[in-house]
């Protein structure tokens, strides 16, 4: 998660905490918070310094900061680049897709996870899901 914040009232903190609760490992990346810990994970200064393989890069940065992050995501072998609510960079997206990555823009993985798993409906949101099947708890 690039742009992860150690401040608990920031959107990135909300998303990281939620995704951890759902069983995902989230590695925070933030050069300003290098050496600190967020929600039990050591903060890395950039994608290249993450020792593990990563599946997805979730970008909590303004659109102008996206292109170099996409280059790093491609170099790191990530499968998905995800740009958060309000973040969209079409050229960087085309480049990532050309390199075989999947791209999501202007969405939040927390909101999409909760939409697909029924939790978003608890908040009065139109999930667009119609089903006569009983959902697993």
């Amino acid at each position: 998660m690039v742009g992860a914040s150690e401040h608990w009232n920031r959107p990135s903190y909300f998303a990281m905490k939620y995704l951890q609760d759902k069983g995902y490992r989230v590695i925070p990346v933030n050069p300003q918070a290098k050496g600190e810990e967020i929600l039990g994970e050591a903060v890395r200064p950039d994608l290249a310094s993450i020792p593990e393989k990563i599946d997805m890069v979730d970008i909590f940065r303004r659109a102008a900061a996206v292109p170099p992050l996409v280059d790093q995501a491609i170099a790191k072998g990530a499968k998905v680049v995800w740009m958060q609510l309000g973040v969209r960079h079409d050229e960087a997206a085309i480049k990532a897709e050309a390199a075989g990555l999947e791209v999501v823009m202007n969405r939040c993985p927390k909101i999409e996870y909760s939409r697909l798993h029924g939790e978003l409906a608890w908040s009065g949101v139109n999930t667009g899901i119609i089903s006569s099947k009983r959902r697993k708890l």
Partner: protein
Amino acid sequence: MAEKPRTPGFETLAIHAGASPDPATGARSTPIYQTTAYVFDDVDHAASLFNLQTYGYLYSRLTNPTVSVLEERVASLEGGRGAIAVASGHAAQMLAFFSFMEPGDQFVSSNKLYGGSITQFGRSFKKFGWDAVLVDPDDPENFRRALTPKCKAVFVESLSNPTGVVVDLEAIAEIAHDAGCLFIVDNTMASPYICRPMRWGADLVIHSTTKFLSGHGNAMGGIVVDSGRFDWAQNDKFKSLSEPEPAYHGLRFYETFGDLALTVHGHAVGLRDLGATMAPLNAFLTITGIETLPLRMERHVQNAQAVAEYLAGHPAVSWVAYAGLPQSKYHKLAQKYLPKGAGSVFTFGVKGGYQAGVALVEGVELFSHLANVGDTRSLIIHPASTTHRQLTEEQQIAAGAGPDVVRLSIGLESIADIIGDLEQGLEKATRLRNA
């Protein structure tokens, strides 16, 4: 590759949206969750819920599983992103404006509104320092002329109660948006089966669900539906959504929740502080009512059209204000915005004025004389002596509720019985006039 699933039709959504079988029990009909509170897994889970960091039920003043089903159902039918159900239509108006108005702010509203709304806007909203500027909606430019830098929203009823005025939604939406204002449409009289204001630019749609949505005259309720399309950060008018919220430790709703901002705010701040919660039983009755909304509305408008045509030819009737009649000045707008029919609530003028109006409402035997609309039963009222009596005669006439005005809400009884009852009631009113 899998075929893209087709978008379900309105009738399918009216039955299924928001209401999958209950995950806990498999119950097929939506259970009534008659509980005030919900247990936390642990302290951390409680903290996440209080901080809005995770989804879940906390306390039924804010959210409740039965009420959530209704919210998703109506949001789906209106084509919105989310909704906040509340205790009544008046509470819906209060919550909608509360989400962004501050003392000293203004909004511009149509003056062709339900009389109770004119009183709410003109009297009670004043106590919050909210100033409603009322204009005649027939000329959309009247809204533009009334806009000031302090204006934050434009408000209309799509099909107004009780005058049957149809407003030019698309033109008024453009005027509101040009000024960076929110466009709010009360769609109670039309219902989403007849009119979909968000297709024409509405940002919020409001309902008294007490009327056609619940449909059986047995459950109070209101709802605010958000399109999710309004940019709350486009100017500095909507700081409660775009700027840090002190009560949530500086959280910014728009930044954090994106197009869900108003829906989350409406529960977490609006219902938290206004407290006008919808009861789970009322949500259940309304959910059940909505399942037959398309069938009921078809018959409502069919019966209303027949009654309007009958009255238009009656010698004791001086005029009929039903946009489904070709002679109505709103007929063209109705064909655009209400293609499935001009609703089932309308007014007409009885010859003989105030006394004849009173004689008619007291003389009918099938029509119920009461202050409601959108029931299976046919309803009648004489606004000047009831709903609009708190207004001055000038305001009554401006609101289309002058002394000779009788309002009907045409129900689902046999059409011969509906017309027969009006026939004998008008006979009594005429006898009085000739006596």
